[in-house]
C-alpha cells in the first residue's frame, strides 16, 4: 500500500468533503481536539484493503510517530473537519492511537506552566 496511484494532495479541491468522509459526521471534538496527538497503532502491517485512499494516506502519515490533529490537517491540506472524521473512523477501526491533551482541570496546573516557563528560558535565554 504505497498509495502512489491516484491520490494527490490536490485532491481535496476536486472532491467534496462529504464524499471523502463517506457522509460521516464530525466526531466529538473533545476526543480529537486540535492538539490531540495521534499515531498509528502497533501492528498496522495487516491493514485492511477496504480503507479509502485518504484513510490510507493519513495512516501512512501517522506511521512514523506522533502528530497533532492540526499538523495532520496542515500536512495533508484537508480541511480540519474532514481530517477529524477520517481520524475518528481510523480510531474506531483500531488503526490509530491518540493521546488527548491535558484535561481542563489540569491546565492551570502550576507544574505545567512552570515547565513551559523553564523550557522557554532554557531555549531562548
Amino acid at each position, binding site marked *: 500500500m504505497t498509495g502512489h496511484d491516484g491520490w494527490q494532495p490536490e485532491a481535496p479541491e476536486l472532491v467534496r468533503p462529504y464524499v471523502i468522509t463517506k457522509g460521516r459526521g464530525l466526531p466529538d471534538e473533545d476526543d480529537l481536539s486540535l492538539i490531540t496527538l495521534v499515531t498509528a497503532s502497533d501492528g498496522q502491517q495487516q491493514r485492511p484493503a477496504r480503507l479509502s485512499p485518504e484513510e490510507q494516506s493519513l495512516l501512512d502519515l501517522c506511521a512514523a510517530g506522533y502528530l497533532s490533529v492540526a499538523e495532520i490537517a496542515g500536512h495533508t491540506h484537508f480541511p480540519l473537519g474532514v481530517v477529524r472524521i477520517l481520524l475518528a473512523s481510523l480510531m474506531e477501526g483500531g488503526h490509530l492511537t491518540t493521546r488527548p491533551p491535558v484535561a481542563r482541570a489540569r491546565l492551570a496546573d502550576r507544574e*505545567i506552566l512552570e*515547565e513551559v516557563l523553564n523550557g522557554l528560558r532554557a531555549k531562548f535565554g
Partner: protein
Amino acid sequence: MGSAPSLDERDYVREGATQTAVKILVVGHFAVGKTTLIGSISEIEPLSTEETMTQAAEPVDDLKGVQGKTTTTVAMDFGRLTISDRVVLYLFGTPGQQRFVQMWEDMARGALGALVLVDPERLADSFPVIDLIEHYGLDYAIAVNHFDGTPLRDERALREALDLLDDTPVVTCDARDEKSSAAALTTLVRYLLDRTR
C-alpha cells in the same frame, strides 16, 4: 508524488514530549504579524489548516443540507515548540474576525492563554480581538509589535486606549526576532503562572 506527504523525522513530536500537549494562542488583527511571530519561535515550518466554517458550525445531521451552500474557509497558522522531555507547546495564530465562532471555540478550548499582538498605529483594530479573548475567558498579555522607526505610544496611553486591567502585562517585541518573540511569550507564561497563585 506519494499519497502521504513525506515527512522528516523532525516533523514528528519527539518521543516523550507526547505526554503533555498544550497550546497558546497568538491573536491579533489582519497582518499584525501573528504568523511572523509563530515562525520565529516554531521548530517546524509554520503550517496552515483550513476550517470549513459552514460545515463545522452545523450539527452532524445537517451536513447534507450544507452541500449546496457556499462554505467559508478560514486558515489558521500554527507552529510547535518542544518544551521539555514531556511537554510540547503549540502556538496557534488566530484571525480576529468574530464571525468565525466555531474556530474560536476550537482554538480557545483548553488554551493556556493568549498573546495579543498589537500594532501601535492601528490600536482600534485590536478592540474586537481583545473582546473575543475576554469573551472566551482567556488570560492574555499584550505584545506591541514594534517595527523599526515606529513611534511607540507610552504604555499608559496604550493601556488606557485598550482598557487593560492593571496587571495585564504589556511588552514590546519584534515579531521577526526569535529572542524578542520568545521574551513576549515568556512574559505571558510568567503572568499565567502568577494567576495561579
